[in-house]
């Protein structure tokens, strides 16, 4: 179950992971993209942190919406509208009454799919979100599930986003958005564990 409070903690941990791995994420984005994913995400998560600073008493919907708006307005790259839409869809689902994690994540993934038009196997963040959602629905999300999902993008041929211009030459590289999504779910695991 997600609450305003554990969601704030979740994003805080996610922000820390992004900050710590900023250079790594941008490095991953260099051979198959424009080398800015780490910087984009760090800019976005800094904005999230600032926007959440005075949201201690806010409800879950407001927290989701605040996160979404910060990501949409500050990230600048494709990952901005994608992560932003994910949190916007969670805001909508929570407004409709749910606090159930699988339901919320399913709404988020549907939003990412609608926004970017990609599907599983296209070597995007969706290749992490899809197996993670399935594991959450089955009640067995582990770090191994996340790591495997991230790793699964390596042999894939990119079909969406900047990496898709490289076609088969994108094989052998991890998708940067998949890696950052991995951090998002590792942070979620840490929150859930508490």
């Amino acid at each position, binding site marked *: 179950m997600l609450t305003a409070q554990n969601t704030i903690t979740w994003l805080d941990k996610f922000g820390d992971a992004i900050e710590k791995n900023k250079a790594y994420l941008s490095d991953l984005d260099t051979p198959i993209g424009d080398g800015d994913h780490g910087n984009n995400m760090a800019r976005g998560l800094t904005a999230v942190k600032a926007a959440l600073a005075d949201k201690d008493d806010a409800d879950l919907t407001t927290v989701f919406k605040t996160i979404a708006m910060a990501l949409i*307005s500050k990230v*600048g*790259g494709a990952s*901005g*509208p994608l992560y932003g839409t994910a949190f916007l869809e969670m805001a909508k689902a929570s407004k409709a009454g749910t606090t159930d994690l699988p339901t919320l994540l399913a709404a988020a993934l549907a939003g990412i799919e609608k926004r*970017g038009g990609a599907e599983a196997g296209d070597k995007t963040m969706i290749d992490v979100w899809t197996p993670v959602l399935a594991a959450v629905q089955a009640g067995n999300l582990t770090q191994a599930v996340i790591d495997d999902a991230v790793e699964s993008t390596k042999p894939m041929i990119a079909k969406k986003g900047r990496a898709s211009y490289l076609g088969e030459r994108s094989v052998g590289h991890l998708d940067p958005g998949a890696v950052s999504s991995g951090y998002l779910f590792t942070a979620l695991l840490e929150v859930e564990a508490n």
Partner: protein
Amino acid sequence: MSLGIVIVSHVPEIAAGVTTLIKQVAADVSITFAGGTDDNQVGTSMAKISTAFDDNAADELLAFYDLGSAKMNLEMAIEMSDKSVHLYDTALVESAYTAASLLQAGVDLTAVEAQLAPLKIK
């Protein structure tokens, strides 16, 4: 004139430059643009796109963009806008030029879209 044009690019200079190019052949068409992130880095900004929609004197807009992530921000801005915005997956410079020429000549949207169709490349 009720049809306007919005140019969206990852780079501020491209968005401004395409506007310069097409204004030459479409003095009476309202053309606005959004280029780069909020701090003018390479990227796109939904807020800038929304402003370009609002600032356009027309109430029905034809929007052109460069790369896929601009499209995502465009679509978000479209969902939040009151204006009717048509989004084209066509060659940015060439299709914006085509649309501008035709709108200036008073061509209607259906005929403009027929001319844009062969420029679809994304």
